[in-house]
């Protein structure tokens, strides 16, 4: 069995990956990165040799922190069913935290939804977990991520500072994509991570 270790700067992001959610996702990745952590998600590698669930479980095991957005509950009109991946991965994370080794038990989790108490209607078993609302607003998502991580590590920049930086980044993003020969509407997670990394080092 591979030696297990938890990376204290790694944050697992479990969220929808569709276009409609992109503004929240990008804001969360930016916020995590500016706060001195490393954003990770299932999109980060494309290794055909590793089953998707294996990859996700490996990543969950490696990340001390986890952000889980359970706001995507809408039915897919084509099949009349919702997506269950986010609640599944939240369950894996909570299980890892509950049943894992001592280092796994030190994991910390931030659960996000559109509204703070909406989860009671569809995943009431997580009552007692602190669920935070982003209201589909990237700036609120930034503040929630910041306040959660600031309770673990200090000192950290304030939410308003990160929001202002994120606005500047988003404003420059189209030009940076053109100059990088990237399509701003089809950025991979790797492209986004590197654009954010270089921008934060150069311009914040």
């Amino acid at each position, binding site marked *: 069995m591979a030696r297990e270790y938890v990376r204290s700067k790694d944050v697992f992001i479990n969220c929808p990956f569709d276009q409609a959610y992109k503004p929240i996702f990008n804001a969360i990745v930016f916020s995590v990165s500016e706060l001195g952590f490393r954003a990770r998600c299932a999109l980060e590698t494309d290794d055909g040799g590793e089953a998707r669930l294996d990859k996700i479980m490996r990543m969950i095991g490696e990340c001390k922190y986890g952000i889980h957005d359970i706001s995507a509950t809408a039915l897919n009109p084509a099949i009349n069913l919702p997506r269950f991946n986010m609640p599944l991965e939240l369950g894996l994370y909570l299980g890892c935290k509950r049943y894992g080794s001592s280092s796994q038990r030190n994991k910390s989790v931030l659960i996000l939804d559109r509204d703070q108490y909406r989860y009671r209607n569809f995943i009431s078993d997580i009552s007692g977990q602190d669920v935070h609302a982003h209201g589909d607003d990237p700036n609120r998502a930034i503040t929630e991520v910041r306040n959660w991580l600031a309770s673990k590590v200090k000192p950290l920049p304030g939410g308003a500072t990160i929001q202002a930086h994120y606005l500047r980044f988003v404003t420059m993003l189209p030009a*940076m994509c053109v100059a*990088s020969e990237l399509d701003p509407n089809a950025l991979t997670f790797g492209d986004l991570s590197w654009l954010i990394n270089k921008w934060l080092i*150069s311009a914040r």
Partner: protein
Amino acid sequence: MPAKDRWVLRRAGVAGGRTFATQREAIEAGRKHFASAAGQIVIHNADGKIRAAVYFKVPKIQSPPGRVPSNADKIERAVTSIALAPQAN
């Protein structure tokens, strides 16, 4: 960062700055500036590529996950040229 045969210390997105004969002098001036303030110094090579970053009371930026992509240099050149260019207020 390099400026012809000298080195310049300036804020990202702001024109001008202070020029120095050596990179070491520019770095030292940057360190003095952040003795009491929060921020970071980004040190460039003579070719403009980022050599290092030094952080003062702000979190260190972690490298992205996974392997370095083949277009990492291109992204860095694009981002630094745009992010460092003087911005209109």
